[in-house]
């Protein structure tokens, strides 16, 4: 067994992370110049550059041409194990979550939706599409389909101001209890790239899910895409008994 294994680049990657930690660098703080860093970390410029490149890919650093290398603002951590934590986690992180309504209307269930919502073809569905922004930066496009029989008149609310779940719970007494969510990766289309202000084809999280009442009646089916450079998911794994 090799006893001293640590590639020079990995070593420098760890040293830079430690440097940020040790010097309590904050988001958007600038890193010292390459020359200074080489001296402090005791490394060559080639290795340093390769380490910085890795940390940019990992989302720890970002670089601005001509201005240098900076510490990335931390991603917003979204807990997968409880509902609607985006606004909650935004609040906890002292960030402001806003919404822009892209589409809101009542539509009829097509085949796909009727299957997902367990409703007959043609049943009424409230469809809401929102762009959500954190401190003014677009992070996610969310598309919700809600069983309209649970919330007649909901289209009158302005969901750029009101919380969807709050209206459902407080106005319509809908018992939002639990859900399942499925997570994968997709690539943004041109239209989506304009809204999220990222390049066409950027990989993003693709999340779909169902929300149910305590008695397993479907309330909502949703799809969303989320910018992976701004959002990180978290969960706690435990033994299944």
């Amino acid at each position: 067994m090799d006893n001293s294994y640590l590639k020079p680049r990995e070593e420098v990657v760890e040293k830079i992370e430690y440097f940020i930690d040790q010097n309590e660098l904050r988001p958007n703080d600038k890193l010292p110049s390459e020359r200074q860093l080489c001296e402090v970390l005791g490394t060559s410029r080639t290795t340093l550059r390769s380490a910085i490149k890795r940390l940019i890919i990992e989302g720890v650093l970002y670089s601005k041409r001509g201005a240098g290398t900076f510490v990335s603002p931390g991603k917003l951590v979204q807990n997968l194990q409880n509902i609607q934590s985006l606004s909650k986690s935004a609040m906890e992180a002292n960030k402001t979550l806003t919404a822009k309504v892209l589409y809101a209307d009542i539509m009829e269930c097509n085949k796909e939706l009727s299957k997902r919502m367990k409703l007959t073809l043609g049943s009424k569905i409230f469809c809401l599409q929102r762009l959500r922004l954190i401190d003014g930066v677009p992070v996610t496009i969310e598309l919700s389909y809600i069983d309209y029989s649970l919330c007649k008149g909901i289209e009158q609310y302005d969901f750029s101001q009101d919380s969807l779940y709050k209206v459902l719970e407080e106005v319509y007494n809908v018992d939002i209890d639990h859900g399942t969510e499925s997570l994968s990766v997709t690539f943004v289309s041109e239209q989506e790239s304009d809204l999220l202000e990222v390049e066409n084809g950027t990989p993003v999280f693709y999340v779909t899910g169902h929300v149910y009442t305590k008695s397993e009646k479907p309330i909502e089916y949703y799809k969303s895409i989320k910018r992976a450079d701004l959002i990180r998911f978290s969960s706690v794994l435990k033994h299944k008994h």
Partner: protein
Amino acid sequence: MSNIDYQSPMYLQLREIIRTKIEDGEFPPGTAIPTEHELAKTYGINRLTVRNGISSLVNEGLLKRIQGKGVFVLGEKREHDLETLEGFSQMVRKKNANPSFQILTKSLRNAEHKYSKIFNIQPGEQIFYIKRVDYIDNEPYSLEEIYIPHHVVPQLGDIDLTIFSVYEIYDFYNIEISYSQQTLDLTQLDQSDARFLDIDSSAPLLLFTNTSYNEADTVIEYSRSYTRPDKANYKVHFKR
């Protein structure tokens, strides 16, 4: 993922038509979907548009293009959950598939600052570093980097990790992982590492970072797993 209607770009409309047909079983796994030419004719759109629609589903792992043969529907992606604590082998066997590993590195190194902080040990203390490729049914699935303090399981150095999984070894030595904190990011690998997964360095990968604790809340393992997103969906249950 936007709400698809008649005003949406044609390739997106086509993408959703095909997706629905796959979900409804009209295009079953293992069969070819109609040719580009046929799809173009059926929907009255041009072939380039058809190709764009298909490409996005190929990238998502729903379809597979086979040179000279056509475009085939892949079986449903494996579903893995994001709440059960178990080793890779255990998880794969549960799905009636066959796990295997290729060990790229297994070594001892100094914890240095980063890992001394994670494990709450001295920078000069030794930790195991394991880098391996995980396969499911002989297809590369993820590249893993695992860090374990030497004192947790000093015997690890003498054990062949292609025969026993890390979790099996924990079992042998009565090391109990009580829970693990996991985060999920999207990232990429350098070319030199991407090739182990049979992908391009520009391909997005799911990065699972796990910090695993024992009953006494001591960190006993830290790992990063770069996972191909086209091989599985991840499921989680949530509560209000």
